[in-house]
C-alpha cells in the first residue's frame, strides 16, 4: 500500500546534461511508469534543409549533435554523394574512417565517465574525462576543432592531415590506451560498480529486437548488428567485428562500449599506416537530383539519413533517424520496475543524446 508519487526528472537535472523530461511515477522507491515529454531542444533542422544550399547544409548537419558531430556531417555528405553519384578520393575515405573512429572513442569515453557520475562515482568520471582530453588533443590537431570537427564536406574532406602528423598519432594512442586500462578494469571488476550495474535494467534479446533498439543497447542484448559492416568509407577494408554481450543489463551495455573503444584502437592501427597519398576532395558541380538512404554506425547506434533533391541547390527533403530516437522505447521498457536510484544509470545506458533525437 505504497503512496504513489510523481517525480519530475529533468529537463534540468544534474545527472542529465541534456533536457528530456520524464515523469517518474514511483511507489516507495520503485518506478512504476516513466512518461517522457520532449521538445525542449527541437530545432527543426530538417525544415532548415529546404532553405539552405546543400553544400552549406553540411555545417548544420554537423551541428545536429555536438558529440557525434563528425559522423552526422559525414553521413549527410555520404548521402548527397550517393545521390550525385560521386566517388570520393581514397585518401578522403580513409581519413573519414579515422575521424569516425576517433569520434566514437571520444563519445564512448565521455559516456563512461558520465555513467560513473550517474552512480555517484565522481572519481571515475574525472578519470575518464582526463584520459579523453588526450584524444581531444589528437582530434583538435587533425581537424581544428575539439568537439565540432568541421572536417566534413560534400566530395571529400575539408582539411588534409599532414603525413608526419598521421605518423605521430599511433604513439599518442598507445599512451591513451595504457591510461585507459586501469580505469576500464574498474568498470569490469569493482564491487560497488558491479552492484550498481549487474542485473539492472535488463532488456531481453527479444525486447531489444522488437522495440527497435540500435547500437550498443541492441548489441548488449545479444544481437550482432553493426552498420560498419556495410562497408562505407574505408570500413570494407578494415576488420570490424560486431561486439556483442549477452546479459542485456547495464553492465553489458557498458562492456560493449568499453570493448568498442579498444576495438577502435585496433581499427585505427589498421587505418593510420594505410592512408594512401592523393587528393582529399573533388570538385562538385550540379545539384542532387534523386533520393538516397545512407546508413552509418554512430557511437550510439545506427543512424539513417534520407535526402531527396530535385536538381535545385536546396534539398527537397532531409530526414535523419537518430539512434537515441530509436532507443527511447526500449528505455521506457527498462525503466519499468527499477529503483529510483537506477533511473539515471538506466537512462544513461542508452547514451541519450537528446539533441540528436529531437534535431
Amino acid at each position, binding site marked *: 500500500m505504497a503512496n504513489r508519487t510523481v517525480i519530475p526528472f529533468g529537463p534540468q537535472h*544534474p545527472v542529465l546534461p541534456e533536457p528530456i523530461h520524464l515523469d517518474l511515477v514511483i511507489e516507495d522507491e520503485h518506478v512504476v511508469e516513466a512518461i517522457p515529454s520532449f521538445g525542449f531542444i527541437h530545432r527543426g533542422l530538417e525544415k532548415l534543409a529546404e532553405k539552405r544550399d546543400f553544400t552549406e547544409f553540411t555545417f548544420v548537419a554537423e551541428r545536429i549533435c555536438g558529440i557525434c558531430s563528425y559522423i552526422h556531417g559525414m553521413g549527410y555528405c555520404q548521402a548527397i554523394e550517393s545521390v550525385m553519384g560521386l566517388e570520393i578520393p581514397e585518401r578522403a575515405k580513409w581519413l573519414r574512417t579515422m575521424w569516425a573512429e576517433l569520434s566514437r572513442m571520444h563519445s564512448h569515453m565521455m559516456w563512461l565517465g558520465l555513467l560513473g557520475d550517474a552512480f*555517484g*562515482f565522481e572519481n571515475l568520471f*574525472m*578519470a575518464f574525462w582526463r584520459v579523453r582530453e588526450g584524444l581531444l588533443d589528437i582530434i583538435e590537431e587533425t581537424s581544428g576543432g575539439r568537439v565540432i570537427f568541421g572536417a566534413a564536406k560534400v566530395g571529400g574532406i575539408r582539411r588534409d592531415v599532414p603525413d608526419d602528423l598521421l605518423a605521430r598519432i599511433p604513439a599518442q594512442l598507445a599512451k591513451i590506451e595504457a591510461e585507459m586500462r586501469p580505469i576500464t578494469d574498474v568498470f569490469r571488476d569493482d564491487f*560497488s*560498480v558491479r552492484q550498481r550495474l549487474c542485473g539492472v535494467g535488463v532488456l531481453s534479446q527479444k525486447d531489444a529486437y522488437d522495440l527497435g533498439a540500435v547500437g550498443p543497447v541492441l548489441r548488449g542484448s545479444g544481437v550482432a548488428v553493426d552498420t560498419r559492416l556495410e562497408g562505407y568509407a574505408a570500413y570494407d577494408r578494415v576488420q570490424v567485428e560486431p561486439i556483442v554481450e549477452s546479459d542485456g543489463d547495464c553492465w553489458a551495455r557498458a562492456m560493449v562500449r568499453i570493448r568498442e573503444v579498444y576495438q577502435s584502437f585496433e581499427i585505427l592501427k589498421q587505418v593510420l599506416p594505410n592512408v594512401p597519398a592523393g587528393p582529399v576532395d573533388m570538385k562538385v558541380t550540379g545539384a542532387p537530383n534523386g533520393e538516397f538512404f545512407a546508413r552509418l554506425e554512430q557511437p550510439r547506434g545506427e543512424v539513417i539519413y534520407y535526402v531527396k533533391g530535385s536538381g535545385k541547390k536546396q534539398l527537397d527533403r532531409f530526414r535523419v533517424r537518430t539512434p537515441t530516437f530509436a532507443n527511447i522505447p526500449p528505455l521506457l521498457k527498462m525503466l519499468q520496475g527499477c529503483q*529510483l*536510484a537506477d533511473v539515471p544509470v538506466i537512462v544513461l545506458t542508452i547514451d541519450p543524446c537528446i539533441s540528436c533525437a529531437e534535431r
Partner: protein
Amino acid sequence: MNLTHAILAALLYIVAAPVLAGLLAGVDRIISARMQARIGPPLLQPFYDLFKLFQKERIAVNKTGHFFLLGYLLFTIIAGVEFFIGGDLLIVIFALALGSVFFVLGAFAAGSPYSHIGAERELIQLMASEPMLILSAMGFYVATGSFQVHDIWSRPDLLIVILPGMFAGLVYVLTIKLRKSPFDLATSHHAHQEIVKGITTEFSGPYLAVIELAHWYETILLLGFLYLFFAPWPWLAVLALAAVYFLEILADNTNARLYWQWVLRSSWIFTAVAGAGNLVVLYYLSRGGTP
C-alpha cells in the same frame, strides 16, 4: 570537571569546532581533488562558501522548515557541548539523533518530492547508524563502568585495545554520517545525485549555510567520539583520526553510491558482528572467562 571548566570547554567547542571542521573540509576537498588528478580549491574554500551563503538572498519556501533547521543546529550543538564538557554519553547520542530528526522534519516541510525522498533516505541512514552509536555507548559502559564522557576519557588505559570492534563499527558509521560515498544517499557534497541535492534541495542561501554549519559541528563531535578510544595517548589519537579521515576520503573516491537497502543491511550486519561481537567478548572477559 567544575563549572568554569565546563563553560570554557563548551565555549571552546562552539568557537573552535566550526574552524576545525572547516579546515578539515578544506583538506578533504584538496585531497579528493588530488586523488582525481586535479589541483583542487584553496584550503579556506569551505569558509568562503559558508560566508557567501550567509550573504545570499533569503528565499523562504516554507518558514516552518527554517525553524526546524535551527532546531537541527541547536541540538547538534547541544550534543557537542554535552560531550565536550564531559557529560552523559546517552544524552549526546540522543540529542544528536534529535537534531537529525529536526533536519528531516525541515526537509519534509518543503513540498518538493526531491526533498521528501532525501528526507526519507536520511531517516533510513539514521536507522542504519543509530544502533552502532547506541551500542558504542554500551561498550564504553561495559569497559569503564560509566556513561560519563569525563570518566571515560580520564581512564588511564587505552580503550581501543578492548573495544576494537566498537571502533571499527563507529568508523563504518562515520562514513554514513559524513555523507561519503558509498553511503551518500540523502544528500551529497557533489552535485550529481539522482534526487538533485536530496534533503538540502529546497534550502538556499543562509539556510543552506546553517545546514553546513550543523554538519561541521556534527563532524567534530563524531571525531571526538573516536578520540575517546585513544584518550590517554593524544598523539596516537590524532594520528589515528587522521588515518580514519583519510580512509573516509579514499572510500569516497573509490566507490559508487550504493542502494539504501544495501546500506541498511550492511551497517546492521557490521554493527551486529563488530559491535555486538565486541560487547559479548567484553562481557565474557569481564566475568573472568565464565559466561
